């Protein structure tokens, strides 16, 4: 097969070369210069400009008709303003698009070269240039004013009655948090994230949980490093050598060292051990060697584990730093406690109709973007830098289903900032419903730190992102 392709390519090249030779000879005979475009060619290209223009316009018109209703009516209050701004913009640019392209193509087609004609010498005209500086300026000024009014409306402060929801992103899913009965979010800290506490909410339980998890990992890793066969064997060799030294030189070597090198004694704990102690250590290592904890690691793997161990210990220290928090400050204390009744939901979140929502966005790992096209809403989720956006939903999911004539329709929140391999399937359903339905739904949601959260959370092993983000639907 490959050979065949190669053959075709070679034959093709040879054929082209021959063709080229023939072409070159015939061109020489014809004596036509490449730069002299014939009248026929001029006419052809000129008519092609007109044909192209008409086909182009027809296709554009078709696209406008077939796809011009790009999204259903806006489901949020500010979105209505955005849509009318969009419509005005589209009308203006469509008019200019047709106008300018028509002038361009018609001129190109109309004034093609004729031998006996001379072009008009027309180097400049201040009045004309003024016209097309001033008119666009006026139109743009209008667009800027209208645009910024809409912008200010949508980015302003939320009212005091607004409810607050936090949207939290990670590779590759979303979590929403409702503040619970006290209407206040608990503090959160990325160091406290565990499988039971996916948002890292700061509570005493959260800290305990995180410490427990860290201690377990540290111990596990510590064991892995300690029970590495190579490490054990080299340690054992060291003890045995020392034992031999001890036997050869009797006791005095030991005494001398003890006086001179007191400072070193801590670092080399085995240094200067007695014979019995050494024997005991060796026996211990022998016993360890028979344990099924023993593993064999490559140099780099061992280094990686030691690194990881170091990082885990630093992590633990950061958690301990949180615990050292000063509890005399009553204000912060309440934020500390506030997390206990936070509600955490995955998969879908609900909004009551007609109520202003202040969204707070945070991210755990990389930048994501919370995009809700049906609400004309978008905001980046940036690790370390919380962002916000406010909106008021105006159409319930049910009404929108009627409008769209599609009983399956659902609003979605999707990720719109490339974030890794499953970026294309990072979504959450949004349900807009009556206040009553919403209240019922929220009541059913479990508060923070209950078992249910667990099943949703990704396994906290350093899995390759590819695996972690396996999309739910199958793709072949």
């Amino acid at each position, binding site marked *: 097969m490959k050979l065949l392709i190669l053959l075709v390519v070679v034959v093709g090249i040879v054929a082209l070369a021959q063709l080229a030779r023939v072409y070159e000879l015939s061109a020489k005979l014809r004596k036509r210069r*490449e730069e002299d475009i014939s009248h026929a*060619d*001029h006419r052809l290209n*000129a008519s092609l400009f007109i044909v*192209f223009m008409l086909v182009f316009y027809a*296709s554009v018109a078709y696209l406008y008709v077939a*796809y011009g209703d790009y999204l259903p009516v806006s489901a949020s209050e500010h979105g209505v303003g955005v849509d009318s*701004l969009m419509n005005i913009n*589209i009308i203006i*640019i469509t008019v200019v*698009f047709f106008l*300018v392209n028509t002038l*361009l193509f018609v*001129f*190109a087609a109309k*004034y*093609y*070269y004729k031998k006996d004609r*001379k*072009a*008009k*010498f*027309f*180097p*400049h005209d201040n009045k004309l240039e003024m016209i097309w500086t001033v008119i*666009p300026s006026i139109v*743009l000024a209008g*667009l*800027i004013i209208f*645009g910024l009014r809409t*912008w200010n409306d*949508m*980015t302003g402060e939320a009212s005091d009655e607004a409810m607050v929801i936090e949207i939290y992103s990670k590779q590759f899913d979303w979590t929403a948090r409702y503040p619970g009965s006290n209407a206040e979010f608990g503090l959160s800290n990325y160091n406290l*994230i565990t499988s039971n506490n996916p948002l890292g909410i700061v509570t005493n339980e959260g800290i305990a949980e995180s410490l427990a998890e860290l201690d377990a990992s540290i111990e596990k890793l510590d064991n892995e490093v300690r029970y590495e066969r190579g490490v054990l064997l080299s340690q054992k060799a060291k003890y045995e050598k020392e034992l031999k030294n001890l036997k050869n030189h009797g006791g005095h070597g030991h005494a001398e060292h003890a006086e001179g090198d007191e400072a070193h004694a801590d670092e080399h704990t085995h240094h200067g051990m007695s014979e019995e102690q050494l024997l005991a250590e060796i026996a211990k290592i022998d016993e360890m060697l028979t344990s099924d904890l023993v593993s064999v690691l490559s140099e780099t793997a061992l280094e990686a584990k030691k690194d990881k161990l170091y*990082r885990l210990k630093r*992590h633990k220290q950061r958690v301990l730093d949180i615990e050292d928090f000063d509890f005399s400050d009553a204000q912060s204390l309440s934020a500390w406690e506030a997390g206990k009744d936070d509600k955490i939901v995955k998969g879908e979140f609900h909004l009551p109709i007609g109520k202003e929502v202040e969204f707070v966005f945070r991210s755990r*790992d*990389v*930048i994501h*973007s919370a995009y809700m*096209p049906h609400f004309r809403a*978008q*905001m*980046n989720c940036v690790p*370390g*830098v919380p*962002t916000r956006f406010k909106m008021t939903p105006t159409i319930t999911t049910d009404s929108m289903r009627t409008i769209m004539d599609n009983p*399956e*329709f659902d609003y979605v929140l999707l990720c*719109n*900032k*490339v974030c890794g*391999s499953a*970026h*294309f399937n990072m*979504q959450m359903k949004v349900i807009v419903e009556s206040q009553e339905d919403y209240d019922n739904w929220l009541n059913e949601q479990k508060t923070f730190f209950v078992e249910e959260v667990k099943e949703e959370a990704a396994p906290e092993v*350093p899995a390759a*992102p590819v695996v972690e983000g396996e999309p739910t*639907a199958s793709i*072949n």
Partner: protein
Amino acid sequence: MAANAHHEESFVSKYIFSHDHKMISKQFLITAVFMGIVAVMLSVFFRLQLGWPGQSFSILETFLGKWAPDGVLDRNAYLALVTIHGTIMVFFVLTGGLSGTFSNLLIPLQIGARDMASGFLNMLSYWMFLASSVIMISSLFVEGGAASGGWTVYPPLSALPQAMPGSGMGMTLWLISMVLFVASSLLGGLNYIVTIINLRTKGMKMTRLPLTIWAFLVTAILGVLSFPVLVSAVVLLIMDRSMGTAFYLSDIHIAGEALDVTGGSPILYQHLFWFLGHPEVYIVLLPALGISSEIISTNSRKPIFGYRAMIGSILAIGFLSFIVWGHHMFVTGMNPFLGSVFVFTTLLIAIPSAVKAFNYITTLWKGNIRLTPAMLFSIGLVSTFVTGGLTGIILADSALDVNVHDTYFVVAHFHIVMGLSAIFGMLAGVYHWFPKMFGRMLNTKLGFAHFWLTLVCGFGTFFPMHFVGMAGAPRRYYEYSQFEFLDWVMDLQPIISVFAIVGAISQLIFLFNFFFSIFRGQEASQNPWQANTLEWTTPVEHVHGNWPGALPEVHRWAYDYSNPNYEEDFVPQTVPLKAGEEDH
């Protein structure tokens, strides 16, 4: 330097380590053509996936091997291809390739200089460009694949190897390649600026410079002022990646581990990146506009309309391009008032752009237009520039950008206004100056076929993307079947892909014409287009120092076409003014 020092040159010093701007220009062009082939092929690969998601194509497996198991593009590979496609197109084809080719060729020739101010730096600039090209291409073959976070490589995604496979070795190579690339650009840019300021021949006042040179000058200034900022962004990113700093990182818990980073800001990177990134789109576009100004005037046999206004708008665009970068960041949570300022400055740019567009059209009006392939591409450029520029008005409006930011609407916009326009400008330049570069003509009929196919496929590919984007389809998605609300616009995807593939195939016509004509094209005459500028006073056969005798002297501007005082419809810049005749 003696004008006709015809000393013998070895093959190596003539073709490889040449200091001659004409040879370096050809080196840039040919490198860019190869990079262009790669970038177009990558786009065909991922267009196959987008047009027919999940379908198996044996061509994918042939070219991509394990990145397309069973002929289906892997999703990590998809992101890598998109990223490298964008990077190569923007930086290697349309920055290095476009400026490198035409600034090098035309600056000395059109201002009447024997060579660039520093031939050695010029050579160095090319070799760094080549080295960075090689590194960028080689990053496609490393473990984990090439950089995959998009051509903007935002951290933390690009900073953390845990975040995606492409953020490992591939990303490292990407960063190294970019540093070399920027060094190359700076060497080139400084050289262009110094040459234009200092080496103009007698009589070549700034107000007599062809618009190409004005465009190259402003482009070089933009590059020199903005590329260093990209280097800082990149160097800080390198430090975050490998030295444990946290300029861009804060509060990150990834792959089951809380990182020891606090206090950095990912947004800082975006400010630094776009401080280059926006001027960059004009670095890509201005040379194309300069080239088309020259070609449109020459082939309309009319002076460019509003020469001074054209210079003014180049300068205005250049200046404004430094204070609009925030329009890429409306949804990063920036202060809304700051957003308003960027809305204002961005929409201001529309004014000089409109002036340019109308001036082009007025230049055509009542012309005697020679529809050469170069002219066709220049007219096409005006159309793409206007069509793509108009949708910029929507994106500049922060309130509207919220809903179309990072969707296919943006992809449509920048491909038309920057991609198509700059490619059209570059192709126009190749058709127009090919006789100057290679002493031979390109075949005209093949040029016509190439233009019409490219125009149709260009719009056919990118125009429908507006509607895909407005319907809410994000960019950089491997496939869209996970979202039912997008199903109805996805009908457009196969159509787009067909146009893209036919468009890519029709570039073979150009490639054939190009390589064939280098060796076998019709031999060129000295001034085939009957143009006024100085490059056409040099002999067809290249000589060191450009003019065999004394340097030409300039007496008038470059646009005396169809001047009523003269019989001929062109008056080269070297012709003295008649008694009583005024300079333009």
